[in-house]
């Protein structure tokens, strides 16, 4: 049952790769990846097919990098690329439900999600020689890679359907629900709309790019602190500090600028600022939406 160790090495050479300084370690790494994949998936993929696929998709990295590869991900990717019976079905069953959940987070309807998944299906399975799977080199989890690919596809499809003249930077904010309803009216009533907008815009300009980003995520897009932390791969406490300091600065700057513009008095300024604070999130949206 067990194959001679040199199988992997000869496969490697057949596909134009060099075994490197430590052929034994290479052999062990490939065998381990194969075993891991075989244990994870009930698919009869041959060593030859697996080895050929891995030799093709991985970069000539050192053995340590090879040892860290996701055998589970590469195995099913190879099986799909080899059009093994049952492989793509299993791939979809394992990964697509989660993918659909992810895509739904993109402020998109279910037809949009279906469209993206269908597009993805074609790019993954339709032609083995041009399959997207050949760009997955196993350096991380297959699922995570697939999510990134899917979101990128979704962005592309969205751009296309929005028409070609879409050269303004798409901040994701354009798709937010319009804040046209009450807050705008409220500020109009206060008769300070232009002044406020200007003060707010000036205040926003004092923030750096990251401060603006985290405020948008937290206040406009409604991400939790944990989620903001995940976006930047930082601890939640750091993310919390970023968000709160950005918010404080924005309020402070807006207050100062507005007060000097309007020469507001006591209560007036306070009640206006109270309104500003509670509507900060909507104001952000209002400011960033092209009107």
């Amino acid at each position, binding site marked *: 049952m067990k194959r001679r160790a040199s199988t992997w090495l000869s496969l490697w050479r057949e596909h134009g790769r060099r075994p490197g300084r430590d052929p034994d370690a290479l052999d062990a790494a490939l065998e381990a990846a194969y*075993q*891991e994949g*075989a*244990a*994870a998936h009930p698919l009869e993929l041959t060593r030859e097919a697996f080895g050929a696929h891995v030799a093709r998709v991985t970069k000539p990295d050192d053995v340590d990098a090879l040892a860290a590869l*996701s*055998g*589970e991900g590469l195995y099913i990717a190879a099986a799909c690329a080899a059009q093994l019976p049952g492989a793509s079905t299993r791939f979809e069953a*394992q990964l697509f439900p*989660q993918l659909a*959940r*992810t*895509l739904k*987070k*993109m402020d998109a309807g279910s037809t949009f999600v279906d469209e993206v998944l269908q597009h993805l299906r074609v790019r993954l399975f339709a032609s083995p020689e041009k399959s997207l799977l050949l*760009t*997955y*080199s196993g*350096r*991380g*989890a297959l*699922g*995570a*890679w697939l*999510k*990134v*690919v899917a*979101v*990128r596809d979704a*962005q592309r499809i969205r751009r296309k359907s929005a028409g070609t003249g879409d050269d303004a*930077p*798409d*901040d*994701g904010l354009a798709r937010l629900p319009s804040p046209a309803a009450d807050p705008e009216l409220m500020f109009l009533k206060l008769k300070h709309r232009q002044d406020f907008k200007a003060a707010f815009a000036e205040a926003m300009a004092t923030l750096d*790019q*990251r401060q603006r*980003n985290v405020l948008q995520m937290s206040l406009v*897009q409604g*991400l*939790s602190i*944990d*989620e*903001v932390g*995940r*976006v*930047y*791969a*930082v601890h*939640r*406490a750091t993310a*919390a500090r970023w968000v*709160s300091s950005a918010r404080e600065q924005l309020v402070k700057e807006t*207050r100062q600028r507005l007060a000097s513009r309007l020469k507001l008095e*006591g*209560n007036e*300024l*306070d*009640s206006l*600022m*109270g309104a500003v604070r509670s509507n900060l999130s909507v104001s952000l949206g209002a400011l960033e939406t092209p009107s």
Partner: protein
Amino acid sequence: MECPDPEELARFADGLVTGEAREALRAHADGCASCREVLVTLARSSGPPTEAGALAVPTGDGERPRRGDLIGRYVVLDARGAGGMGLVMSAHDNQLDRNVALKLVRPDLEEKGGAEKTRARLLREAQLMARVRHPNVVTIYDVGTLGERVFIAMELIDGVTLRAWLRERRRSEREICAVFVQAGRGLAAAHAAGVVHRDFKPDNVLIDVKGDAHVMDFGLAWSVAVNDDVSAPGTEGTPAYMAPEQLRGGAIDARTDQFAFCVALYEALTGQRPFQGTDRLKAPVMPPHLPQRLALALTRGLSATGADRFESMEPLLEALQPRSRASWWLGLGAAAAVVAAAGATFVLARQENDCAKAPRRLAQVWDAARRDEVRRAFAATGVTFAGPAFESAAAALDRRTGEWRAAFERTCESGATEALRSRQRACLDARLGEVDALTQLFVRADPSVVEHAAEAAAHLKSPASCLTGDALTTLPLPDEPGRRAAIAQVRLELAKAEVLQHAGRTQAALDAARAAITRAKQTKYPPVEAEAWLQVVEPLRDQGHADEARAALDEATVAAEAGRHFEALLKIAVKHVRVVDSAHTDEADGWIRRAEASLEQTPNLEVKAELDSVVAVLRLGQRRTGAALERSAAARAFYEAEGRAADALGERHIAALAQRARGNATGAVAELQPLLADYEKVLGPTHPRTQHVLVHLAEARLDLGDVPRALEDLGDVRLAEAQLTPSWAAMRSRLEGDGRRMQGRLTEAEAAYRRALELAPTNPQPRLRLAAALREQGRLADAATELEAATTQLVKTHGALSGPVAVAQLERAQLELARGSVHEADVLAGDAITKLNVFIEDAAAPEHIEGLLTTSRIALAASDPARAAVDARVVLERVPERSVQAARAKVRLGLPEGVARLRELGLFPLEQGTLSGR
């Protein structure tokens, strides 16, 4: 920078990218909207499902959990692994914020008794194993069921199996023996806890990156279907390691594991199995290259009958080590292997009072080996600050043990009488017992122990004091060695309870102390019984059982009097002050006098410091801040001289609070800020006491009108709120409400107060503030209801004639004013001011200032501007010029700079007046 390829971005999102590359990707994400959208989408979809505790995964058999799935409270991180007994995956424990290995096993349905019974047995076994904490055993954290299957959460070890380790390259005999000895120690620890492994083999031992061995999968083999989901690659079939009795299905015990251990060791050393198939009759051949001591040990361990093998793992392991190290190991083994026999080494050590023994006795409680064990145990908890916590605890232990050695040596030199020397030694024994208890606790550290390690170590008492005061009060012991040993054992348990208490593990401390009471009664030695009763007092108080604590003090008094234990009587008096009912603080004064009289007779600096400390807290509560400051300064001097860092910080904390109570919020902030930094250093940032300082800092900032920073501090506390008791969490919310009210954001204030009330329904303070917030919203009927309830609670806690009730009366005056009954309001406020003058001595105390601002406002409403001006001017005299209170007083006086200043502070003009005192 170009957009990263999907794989790189996915790795970044999974936290796999580090260093400069990670920074570069963060910077890219800042500037690239489309990458940011990808990351935001991933972040939103990769968190745990919102329904807490839901089992989001597969209850059916054979379905594999996936990344992000929730199993119990664990989020699956990587489900790629597979083991002989089912699925192994890495997961994150959201509750304790650490990574764990999660094993999902399916009980063998063929096993007789049915699946239900099998599962129950498997759970029981895993729970039993969960009690074994040893560096060479993979710690089990948690077990639970998931449909048909059982999941086991255990320590995540970064390493390879022993089998893979052996295959990696050729290993020397010495290397092999070293890891087997470690694995054997793990087995021995489990045996001591009554657990037999049943399936010891190289696949069940993990070698971590440092080369240390960890045995796993204890007691699981029998109940598990071998072909669950997937079979492990490279598993050679377990029967090869089985002892004859196990193959026969006969009775098995620890010696069965010994046999398997020897099969594995033989295989590792020779490259062959000692037996063919299941034939165990032919004695194995020992190759000539094997050293004789190993050959002999293996032959004995591989005997066909258990009786012919070593009686336990220990002598076998001793035989596996080179001669010179064997005795060293015995010492360590005795200290470390047997958790159950805690303290045995110390009791034995007591018998020997030879001066030359000092280093050895120290080594038994704190030497390089134990230090290393503790380091590993800390690291293994996965707590993020385990490193610094270890360093700080180890430094304290180094210091105390150094002092202990010096003190012990001095007892050898001094020309003291034998009687004094034996008392000094008894005291030193007790100190060493405390160190022993602490390090034993550390060896079995869990995250909460790591969190409190520095504090517990900082509480260790100075051994030097044994040479003077304390030694003199040590009572003579009975002559019978048996009783002496029993008494020593109880004192060791009490020391352990004390350590647990300082480590913040109140319930464990209480359990330990209660168990010690039972044992103490059996000794028929009243002094130790009194000590045991004393030990339950603090935990009971911390849990809010003041009545039970007082009852325990009565029991302690009876025992202390019977045993003529004067030191205990003194401590009882001190504890009485600590647990006195806040409505009857006058009783405390009697106890203070008693304690002080007794201290004059027999000076005892340590008890004196404790007395000063508890009196300082009492006086602070009584608003006698001068006395509080004096007492806490005295206690602080002692604690600093003794190097008891945590206790010294506590006194600084009390002093800062006294400053605030005097109306010196600026001074309080100036003291609390550096104190916060010191607490973070000594106890760590998430320690409850560090959080308490932060809460008080926010409170003082509110006094100063610095609402934004106060709210920021309170926001930080909120992040660590899980560490706080409900009453502290309630205070946090209450202060948040105060800040919101000062900003004029009344609905938010109301919400914060209501949250505080949910957390601590019987706490009158949030209710009083809620009444004020409702009044300010014009909801007068609701305000009246809440105010009445708050007043009733305040009367119950503090007595009808007290500062807090007078403050409530001020609120009542405000309410009457809002209703338009100006005269009623005037009378009530005047009466409240009179009462406050009686109860609160500091003229600038926040309560007085608040009172004067109220009366001034009422006087304005009563069309008496002259009187209003007088009160406002008094306020101006007593508070700092730039303070928020001064600004409010100026508003009353009609001075425009008052309004300007309030506006500058970003505060709501507060025309309705507020309550910002206690």
